[in-house]
Protein backbone atom coordinates (compact mmCIF):
# COMPACT_ATOMS: atom_id res chain seq x y z
CA UNK A 1 0.00 0.00 0.00
CA UNK A 2 1.61 3.30 -0.96
CA UNK A 3 0.82 6.79 -2.12
CA UNK A 4 3.12 9.33 -3.73
CA UNK A 5 2.28 12.95 -4.51
CA UNK A 6 4.86 14.40 -6.87
CA UNK A 7 5.64 17.21 -9.29
CA UNK A 8 7.79 14.81 -11.38
CA UNK A 9 6.57 12.91 -14.47
CA UNK A 10 5.11 9.52 -13.52
CA UNK A 11 7.00 6.43 -14.75
CA UNK A 12 3.79 4.49 -15.36
CA UNK A 13 5.23 1.24 -16.72
CA UNK A 14 7.87 1.00 -13.99
CA UNK A 15 5.29 1.70 -11.27
CA UNK A 16 2.94 -1.01 -12.57
CA UNK A 17 5.77 -3.55 -12.86
CA UNK A 18 6.90 -2.81 -9.30
CA UNK A 19 3.46 -3.62 -7.84
CA UNK A 20 3.31 -7.18 -9.16
CA UNK A 21 7.02 -7.96 -8.97
CA UNK A 22 7.58 -11.06 -6.85
CA UNK A 23 3.89 -11.33 -5.83
CA UNK A 24 3.13 -14.77 -7.25
CA UNK A 25 0.12 -15.11 -4.96
CA UNK A 26 -1.60 -12.49 -7.16
CA UNK A 27 -3.71 -13.61 -10.12
CA UNK A 28 -5.00 -10.18 -11.09
CA UNK A 29 -3.72 -6.65 -11.46
CA UNK A 30 -5.65 -3.61 -12.68
CA UNK A 31 -4.12 -0.25 -13.51
CA UNK A 32 -5.87 3.01 -14.28
CA UNK A 33 -4.07 5.93 -15.92
CA UNK A 34 -5.60 9.44 -15.91
CA UNK A 35 -4.15 11.80 -18.50
CA UNK A 36 -4.45 15.47 -19.40
CA UNK A 37 -7.08 15.59 -22.12
CA UNK A 38 -6.92 18.20 -24.85
CA UNK A 39 -10.48 19.11 -25.73
CA UNK A 40 -10.22 20.03 -29.45
CA UNK A 41 -12.54 23.00 -28.86
CA UNK A 42 -10.56 24.64 -26.09
CA UNK A 43 -6.99 24.13 -27.36
CA UNK A 44 -5.41 23.43 -24.02
CA UNK A 45 -1.87 24.71 -23.61
CA UNK A 46 -1.29 23.39 -20.10
CA UNK A 47 -3.11 22.18 -17.02
CA UNK A 48 -2.03 23.59 -13.67
CA UNK A 49 -2.76 21.39 -10.69
CA UNK A 50 -2.70 22.97 -7.24
CA UNK A 51 -2.82 20.89 -4.07
CA UNK A 52 -2.97 21.12 -0.27
CA UNK A 53 0.41 19.76 0.88
CA UNK A 54 0.02 17.40 3.83
CA UNK A 55 -3.69 16.83 3.35
CA UNK A 56 -3.28 15.32 -0.12
CA UNK A 57 -1.12 12.47 1.17
CA UNK A 58 -3.29 11.67 4.19
CA UNK A 59 -6.55 11.97 2.23
CA UNK A 60 -5.38 9.55 -0.48
CA UNK A 61 -3.86 7.18 2.10
CA UNK A 62 -7.27 7.11 3.83
CA UNK A 63 -8.97 6.30 0.51
CA UNK A 64 -6.46 3.50 -0.14
CA UNK A 65 -6.89 2.11 3.39
CA UNK A 66 -10.68 2.05 2.93
CA UNK A 67 -10.24 0.14 -0.34
CA UNK A 68 -8.11 -2.48 1.45
CA UNK A 69 -10.79 -2.82 4.15
CA UNK A 70 -13.56 -3.35 1.60
CA UNK A 71 -11.76 -5.66 -0.86
CA UNK A 72 -9.21 -8.45 -0.42
CA UNK A 73 -6.32 -6.59 -2.04
CA UNK A 74 -2.78 -7.93 -1.90
CA UNK A 75 -1.31 -4.51 -2.68
CA UNK A 76 -1.98 -1.14 -4.31
CA UNK A 77 -0.12 1.93 -5.52
CA UNK A 78 -1.40 5.44 -6.15
CA UNK A 79 0.67 8.25 -7.67
CA UNK A 80 -0.76 11.73 -8.31
CA UNK A 81 1.05 14.65 -9.91
CA UNK A 82 0.73 18.37 -9.25
CA UNK A 83 2.26 21.39 -10.99
CA UNK A 84 2.13 22.26 -14.70
CA UNK A 85 1.22 19.41 -17.04
CA UNK A 86 0.88 19.29 -20.84
CA UNK A 87 -1.81 17.50 -22.88
CA UNK A 88 -1.15 13.76 -22.95
CA UNK A 89 0.85 13.71 -19.73
CA UNK A 90 -0.19 11.39 -16.91
CA UNK A 91 -1.91 13.03 -13.92
CA UNK A 92 -2.65 9.95 -11.81
CA UNK A 93 -2.18 6.20 -11.74
CA UNK A 94 -4.03 3.70 -9.55
CA UNK A 95 -2.78 0.11 -9.46
CA UNK A 96 -4.53 -2.69 -7.56
CA UNK A 97 -3.40 -6.28 -7.03
CA UNK A 98 -5.45 -9.24 -5.80
CA UNK A 99 -5.83 -13.01 -6.07
CA UNK A 100 -8.87 -12.72 -8.35
CA UNK A 101 -9.98 -10.01 -10.76
CA UNK A 102 -13.16 -8.67 -9.18
CA UNK A 103 -11.42 -7.07 -6.19
CA UNK A 104 -8.84 -5.33 -8.39
CA UNK A 105 -11.42 -3.98 -10.86
CA UNK A 106 -13.83 -2.73 -8.21
CA UNK A 107 -11.19 -1.30 -5.86
CA UNK A 108 -9.49 0.63 -8.67
CA UNK A 109 -12.80 2.20 -9.68
CA UNK A 110 -13.71 2.95 -6.05
CA UNK A 111 -10.34 4.62 -5.45
CA UNK A 112 -10.72 6.81 -8.55
CA UNK A 113 -14.30 7.79 -7.70
CA UNK A 114 -13.28 8.83 -4.17
CA UNK A 115 -10.10 10.50 -5.36
CA UNK A 116 -12.16 12.75 -7.67
CA UNK A 117 -14.10 14.25 -4.77
CA UNK A 118 -11.98 13.84 -1.64
CA UNK A 119 -8.38 14.51 -2.71
CA UNK A 120 -7.51 18.20 -2.34
CA UNK A 121 -6.38 19.11 -5.84
CA UNK A 122 -7.68 21.92 -8.03
CA UNK A 123 -7.14 22.17 -11.78
CA UNK A 124 -6.72 25.32 -13.84
CA UNK A 125 -6.75 25.19 -17.63
CA UNK A 126 -4.48 27.54 -19.56
CA UNK A 127 -5.50 28.09 -23.17
CA UNK A 128 -4.66 30.57 -25.92
CA UNK A 129 -7.76 32.60 -25.02
CA UNK A 130 -7.32 32.63 -21.24
CA UNK A 131 -7.22 30.61 -18.02
CA UNK A 132 -10.06 29.15 -15.99
CA UNK A 133 -10.50 26.93 -12.97
CA UNK A 134 -12.10 23.59 -13.83
CA UNK A 135 -15.46 23.09 -12.09
CA UNK A 136 -16.20 19.86 -10.28
CA UNK A 137 -18.55 17.52 -12.15
CA UNK A 138 -21.92 16.27 -10.90
CA UNK A 139 -21.05 12.88 -12.43
CA UNK A 140 -18.09 12.62 -10.06
CA UNK A 141 -20.25 13.35 -6.97
CA UNK A 142 -22.78 10.75 -8.11
CA UNK A 143 -20.02 8.22 -8.81
CA UNK A 144 -18.71 8.60 -5.26
CA UNK A 145 -22.19 8.16 -3.75
CA UNK A 146 -22.89 4.85 -5.45
CA UNK A 147 -20.19 3.19 -3.30
CA UNK A 148 -22.25 3.92 -0.16
CA UNK A 149 -24.51 0.93 -0.71
CA UNK A 150 -23.15 -2.37 0.65
CA UNK A 151 -20.86 -4.24 -1.73
CA UNK A 152 -22.23 -7.71 -2.52
CA UNK A 153 -19.81 -10.59 -1.90
Amino acid at each position, binding site marked *: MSVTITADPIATEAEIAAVSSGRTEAGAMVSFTGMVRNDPECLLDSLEIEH*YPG*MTTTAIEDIEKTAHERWPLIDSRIVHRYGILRPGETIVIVVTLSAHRRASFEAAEFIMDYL*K*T*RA*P*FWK*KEHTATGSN*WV*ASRTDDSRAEMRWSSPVAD
Partner: protein
Amino acid sequence: MIKVLYFAWVRERIGIPVEEIETCARTVGELIGELAGREERYRLVFADPSSLRVAVDQRIGDLDTPIADASEIAIFPPMTGG
Protein backbone atom coordinates in the same frame (compact mmCIF):
# COMPACT_ATOMS: atom_id res chain seq x y z
CA MET B 1 -4.74 32.38 16.67
CA ILE B 2 -5.71 30.03 13.89
CA LYS B 3 -4.11 29.48 10.52
CA VAL B 4 -6.49 29.90 7.58
CA LEU B 5 -5.46 28.66 4.14
CA TYR B 6 -7.11 29.47 0.82
CA PHE B 7 -6.83 27.50 -2.42
CA ALA B 8 -7.66 27.91 -6.12
CA TRP B 9 -9.97 30.80 -6.99
CA VAL B 10 -10.66 31.45 -3.30
CA ARG B 11 -6.94 32.21 -2.90
CA GLU B 12 -6.87 34.33 -6.06
CA ARG B 13 -9.86 36.46 -5.08
CA ILE B 14 -8.82 37.01 -1.47
CA GLY B 15 -5.28 37.68 -2.66
CA ILE B 16 -3.29 35.62 -0.17
CA PRO B 17 -2.67 31.88 0.31
CA VAL B 18 -2.62 31.90 4.11
CA GLU B 19 -3.14 34.12 7.14
CA GLU B 20 -3.19 33.92 10.93
CA ILE B 21 -6.54 34.98 12.37
CA GLU B 22 -7.49 36.05 15.86
CA THR B 23 -11.07 34.84 16.37
CA CYS B 24 -13.69 33.81 18.92
CA ALA B 25 -15.69 31.95 16.28
CA ARG B 26 -16.77 28.52 17.48
CA THR B 27 -17.51 26.93 14.09
CA VAL B 28 -16.27 27.20 10.52
CA GLY B 29 -19.54 28.93 9.59
CA GLU B 30 -19.06 31.58 12.27
CA LEU B 31 -15.48 32.19 11.13
CA ILE B 32 -16.58 32.64 7.53
CA GLY B 33 -19.27 35.06 8.70
CA GLU B 34 -16.64 37.03 10.61
CA LEU B 35 -14.27 37.14 7.61
CA ALA B 36 -17.11 38.16 5.27
CA GLY B 37 -17.76 41.16 7.51
CA ARG B 38 -14.16 42.38 7.26
CA GLU B 39 -13.67 43.59 3.72
CA GLU B 40 -15.38 43.51 0.33
CA ARG B 41 -13.06 40.84 -1.11
CA TYR B 42 -13.99 38.39 1.68
CA ARG B 43 -17.68 39.25 1.40
CA LEU B 44 -17.66 38.51 -2.34
CA VAL B 45 -15.84 35.19 -2.00
CA PHE B 46 -18.00 33.99 0.91
CA ALA B 47 -21.31 35.30 -0.51
CA ASP B 48 -22.35 31.76 -1.41
CA PRO B 49 -21.00 29.33 1.21
CA SER B 50 -22.56 26.41 -0.69
CA SER B 51 -19.96 27.01 -3.42
CA LEU B 52 -17.16 26.37 -0.91
CA ARG B 53 -15.71 23.37 0.89
CA VAL B 54 -13.65 23.32 4.05
CA ALA B 55 -11.09 21.25 5.92
CA VAL B 56 -10.29 21.54 9.62
CA ASP B 57 -6.86 20.25 10.65
CA GLN B 58 -6.62 18.64 7.20
CA ARG B 59 -9.86 16.65 7.53
CA ILE B 60 -12.90 17.46 5.39
CA GLY B 61 -15.40 19.43 7.47
CA ASP B 62 -18.44 21.61 6.99
CA LEU B 63 -19.87 24.89 8.26
CA ASP B 64 -20.87 23.30 11.59
CA THR B 65 -17.46 21.82 12.35
CA PRO B 66 -16.18 23.21 15.68
CA ILE B 67 -12.87 25.06 15.50
CA ALA B 68 -12.10 25.80 19.17
CA ASP B 69 -9.20 23.32 19.33
CA ALA B 70 -8.22 23.48 15.67
CA SER B 71 -4.89 24.84 14.47
CA GLU B 72 -5.59 25.00 10.74
CA ILE B 73 -8.62 25.66 8.57
CA ALA B 74 -8.68 25.57 4.78
CA ILE B 75 -11.35 27.08 2.52
CA PHE B 76 -11.52 26.09 -1.14
CA PRO B 77 -13.80 25.23 -4.07
CA PRO B 78 -15.00 21.64 -4.62
CA MET B 79 -11.99 19.43 -5.34
CA THR B 80 -11.09 18.48 -8.89
CA GLY B 81 -8.38 15.90 -8.47
CA GLY B 82 -7.84 12.62 -10.23
